[in-house]
């Protein structure tokens, strides 16, 4: 079951081709061709009524059964990139997706030319208590686009739900000199101590990163 709150690196097409068996490779070729076709033939309206689903989106759902569940994230991300998935399709796939399908949308956002328009999906994931979604939401796309208040709350959410802050992209860069984040972390630590509970090691780690100036640690997680 996909319970690991950190996420594995996504495989490239070449890496997938090297790892997949013949039938899975053929399925992937067809799926990517359908996605590419959909990208170049975007219909003005959704044909077939409000509940019709383009075939490449059905493949997006079934990817794990054909290419192995361990490759589902990579295959789904590739389909999104190959389809040049725009915000309406991404939103549909996210809103209609299982937790695993939603996670793959989140993992692919930074590879699509979206600007900050997909932030509502990230913010939705950060409102959940599903650690798989929270971990996927704090990747490169959030690092680039999530505004300061929501980003700080994302860090706190990780600490609250046990998502390792190693999952947070650009943690050191965005934390450096963030006095408000330092205050929030300090308050959280005080609340834990007042309740007789331990302070998570990750809290201390992030607090150290909030120190201003070039002396702060710069290594990325």
């Amino acid at each position: 079951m996909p319970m690991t709150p950190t996420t594995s690196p996504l495989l490239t097409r070449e890496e997938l081709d090297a790892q997949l068996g013949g039938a899975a490779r053929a399925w992937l070729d067809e799926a990517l061709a359908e996605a590419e076709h959909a990208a170049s033939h975007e219909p003005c309206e959704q044909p077939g009524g409000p509940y019709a689903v383009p075939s490449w989106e059905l493949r997006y759902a079934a990817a794990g059964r054909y290419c192995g569940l361990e490759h589902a994230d990579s295959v789904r991300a590739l389909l999104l990139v190959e389809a040049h998935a725009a915000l309406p399709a991404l939103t549909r796939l996210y809103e209609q997706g299982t937790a695993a399908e939603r996670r793959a949308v989140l993992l692919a956002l930074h590879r699509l030319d979206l600007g900050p328009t997909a932030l509502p999906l990230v913010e939705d994931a950060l409102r959940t208590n599903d650690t798989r979604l929270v971990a996927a939401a704090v990747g490169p796309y959030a690092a680039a686009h999530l505004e300061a208040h929501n980003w700080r709350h994302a860090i706190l959410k990780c600490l609250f739900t046990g998502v390792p802050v190693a999952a947070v992209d650009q943690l050191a860069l965005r934390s450096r000199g963030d006095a408000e984040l330092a205050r929030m972390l300090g308050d959280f630590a005080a609340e834990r101590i007042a309740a007789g509970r331990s302070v998570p090691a990750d809290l201390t780690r992030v607090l150290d990163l909030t120190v201003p100036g070039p002396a702060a640690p710069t290594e990325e997680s």
Partner: protein
Amino acid sequence: MRIFDPHIHMTSRTTDDYQAMYDAGVRALVEPSFWLGQPRTSPASFFDYFDALLGWEPFRAAQYGIAHHCTLALNPKEANDPRCTPVLDALPRYLVKDSVVAVGEIGYDSMTPAEDTALAAQLQLAADHGLPALVHTPHRDKLAGLHRTIDVIRESHLPPERVLLDHLNETTVKDARDSGCWAGFSIYPDTKMDEDRMIAVLKTHGTEKVLVNSAADWGRSDPLKTRKVGDAMLAAGFSEDDVDRVLWRNPVAFYGQSGRLQLDIAAPEPLHEGNSILRGGE
């Protein structure tokens, strides 16, 4: 004793139940979509429910070391409400999801024409998607309802070995088994079946293609009834292999026809400071 509860509505249950089920030996379950007690008024309400069965509920179950799968459908009761029937058009996009292992619960409630339509349409959806079907048999006018259900299944493209007829009892078990379908029994504190009656049915009809479930939901019910049947079987002289067949291998074989069962769930990870569902502040 390893247990697969093939029919339980965990949405209505607490984390205490998950813990007790794990302690009793439950390692896998199937949650069929059904009526929530309060009638729904729009397809969107179904979609949020389906999303929960595909997202949050498996997450909760996994924290207790229990593999969670689901069956999705428009239930028989709400098939009569025209505000809800557009769900049938949206089901194809849900039936391709990884953890959907059957179409269900479908079947009859009051045996209306609208229920005829929904049952036939959803048996076809199961055939189209390579899925088995979980068929609820009605509480009222049960034997007549069973016969009508079997007639509709015979007219469908779904072979009987891909159908589980559920909520059977002494009056319906023989005809259900003669139909070639799998036979499901729901064990309840008051209604449906109890452990002793279940033992009698097993002695008469054997363990082949028989499934036992708790069907626990928001009403008076007990998520540990599967374990209690297992204990009652052993006390009545059935072997451990018989128990394993009824409580594990039969549900695995039935839902395994979907090709989508994932039973290799990891042992529960250490819970966050002894807590489970992390709403924050634990």
